């Protein structure tokens, strides 16, 4: 028997039992649809996160940590833990940051400075950490300033804010926010007055050494909020200010009591510094140089392997869910094929009587289950794709109301579809093995007597 004829016979038989073929193929379709959307969701997530990280230069960023004991994990502005802690006496001051900037392979180094402040716009006020960021970092590609511009120099009197904080401050139009004035209110302590007071009078509020000071800055730029937190820490603080004006704001010289434990020879130093690499290739070299200076380092690139492993695990978990549907579909195929054998018992006998070999019969049934898999698999791809688009649309609809940009949560590389169809056919063929063998073993004498 020619393979083309076996296919013809298989299709003719499927056509004859249209409803059952449709229902069985639907089982495969749903299984493959679930698998396709699950895997494409996993891939989409991975792609989005990786892309966001790459766009934000997070992989080329090394966080430099001063020596000594690490802060507890519960610290509100907790820095990541260094892989190798630095020397206890290493002080991260301006001289150290300058030394970091001079290391070969380092594009830029600046201290991580932030301070708590009450940020006000119009009649609304919010507590925020204001981050001091040099102009060079704000101008880097990591930050997506969609409205307005970055401040041009470290001394410019202007701030860059993100869209989320604007909304919280009551401004829903980022474009309209550019040029408006933002108020930054900080707290400082008059040390001279503190010395002459006792605790009771401080807390009673009488002649408190604590004073508030408000400075005003025009908003020069607004950053887009990226999904998956792709701003990479820079814009998390929501308000960025250049070092120049930041230095003129009266404020406490520390943002957390933990910082006070780092005092060496009366100097606090910075709690961390950011080093931008010229290229990811320089990572190891720069890191070992930084460690030679006595500092601890943390690089997200180190975590990449763990992240990749986590994604692989998630892919497997998602695929496992899809597999349940596939197993159910496979059982459906086995059931359908066995039913088909019972119904066509006599026909199988006739085919054998006129010269069909066991192999011919096997092939016909095998192609039948394969065809169910092919049709179900192809339809499953369409179903999975359409469902994913629909879900994406609904999520977008919801998120767009919160001002979030459109994100493709599902990723459909061609291999997903090809793989899904191939997998469906493979599963169907496997499901057809037992029924095909059973059909091939039919005794023609018994079958021809069968009614």
């Amino acid at each position: 028997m020619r393979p083309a004829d076996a296919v013809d016979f298989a299709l003719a038989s499927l056509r004859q039992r249209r409803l059952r073929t449709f229902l069985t193929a639907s089982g495969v379709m749903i299984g493959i649809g679930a698998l396709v959307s699950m895997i494409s969701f996993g891939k989409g997530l991975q792609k989005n996160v990786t892309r966001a990280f790459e766009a934000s230069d997070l992989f080329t960023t090394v966080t430099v940590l001063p020596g000594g004991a690490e802060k507890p994990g519960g610290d509100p502005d907790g820095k990541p833990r260094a892989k190798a802690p630095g020397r206890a006496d290493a002080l991260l001051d301006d001289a150290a940051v300058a030394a970091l900037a001079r290391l070969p392979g380092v594009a830029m180094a600046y201290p991580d400075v932030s301070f708590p402040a009450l940020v006000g716009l119009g009649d609304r006020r919010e507590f925020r950490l204001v981050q001091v960021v040099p102009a060079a970092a704000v101008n880097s590609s990591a930050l997506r300033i969609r409205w307005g511009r970055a401040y041009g120099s470290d001394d410019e009197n202007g701030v860059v804010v993100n869209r989320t904080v604007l909304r919280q401050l009551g401004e829903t139009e980022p474009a309209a926010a550019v040029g408006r004035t933002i108020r930054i209110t900080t707290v400082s302590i008059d040390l001279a007055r503190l010395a002459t007071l006792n605790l009771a009078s401080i807390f009673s509020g009488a002649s408190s050494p604590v004073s508030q000071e408000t400075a005003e800055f025009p908003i020069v730029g607004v950053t887009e909020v990226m999904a998956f937190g792709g701003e990479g820490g820079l814009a998390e603080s929501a308000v960025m200010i250049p070092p120049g004006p930041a230095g003129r704001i009266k404020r406490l010289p520390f943002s957390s009591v933990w910082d006070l434990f780092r005092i060496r020879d009366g100097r606090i130093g910075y709690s961390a510094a950011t080093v931008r690499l010229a290229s990811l290739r320089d990572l190891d070299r720069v890191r070992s140089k930084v460690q030679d200076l006595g500092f601890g380092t943390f690089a997200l690139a180190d975590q990449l392997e763990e992240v990749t492993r986590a994604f692989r695990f998630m892919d497997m978990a998602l695929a496992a869910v899809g597999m349940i549907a596939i197993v159910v579909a496979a059982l459906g195929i086995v059931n359908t094929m066995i039913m088909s054998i019972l119904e066509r018992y006599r026909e199988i006998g006739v085919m054998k009587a006129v010269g069909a070999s066991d192999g011919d019969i096997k092939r016909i049934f095998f192609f039948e289950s394969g065809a169910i898999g092919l049709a179900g698999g192809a339809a499953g791809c369409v179903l999975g794709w359409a469902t994913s688009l629909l879900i994406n649309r609904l999520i977008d609809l919801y998120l767009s109301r919160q001002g979030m940009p459109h994100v493709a949560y599902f990723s459909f590389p061609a291999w997903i579809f090809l793989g899904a169809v191939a997998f469906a056919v493979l599963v169907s063929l496997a499901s057809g093995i037992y029924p095909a063998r059973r059909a091939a073993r039919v005794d023609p004498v018994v079958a021809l007597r069968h009614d």
Partner: protein
Amino acid sequence: MTDAPLVRVRALARTYVIGGVPVAALAGVDLDVAAGSFTAVTGASGSGKSTLLNLLGGLDTPSAGTIEVDGALVSGLDREALARYRRSVVGMIFQSFNLVPSRTALENVELPLVFAGVDKKERKRRAAEFLDRVGLGGRTGHRPAELSGGEQQRVAVARALINGPRILLADEPTGNLDSRTAREIVGLLDGLNRERRLTVVMVSHEESLVREFARRIVRLRDGRIVDGGDAA
């Protein structure tokens, strides 16, 4: 008979085990069938007629004894070789016609050619020719349900002949037909036998037809030949 017979059956036995009890359907049959003969096998129900025919047709395998066709041993062939034998050496027709109901007359007739791997166009051409030969040239597109019993059996005859078999085996071919149609069908087999020297072995218990057309009558009782056999 000086020529070597086309079919040579020796000590043929077929035992079925039914409910753990062995039942001998054939218990030692010796039979020679000459090329170009028209042999009728008769006997009561359960005498072993159909078992003998199924063994000759390669649908069943014997428990003991040998079958030789055209000098080649058929008994003992493996499943694959038996399938080849069925599609090239023998043609069979049955009491209940055994046509595939979902296929047209033409498609039923071409079925053996499909398993022989013949090209589609050639298949169609030959099937139409054979249908024409059995007088159904105008009914190629009809399905079995749209044909009368006699027409269905004619389709079955065309199907049995399309591969050019050496022997035509007919298992109660008239059992489901009225007497007039039955005569027509056996007459068709008789014509093929006379004009084309086709060897026919027909199982039937319709004495009148058997006596009218068969040149030789073999009687079976309880799995043994009681009349018309070839005692070794």
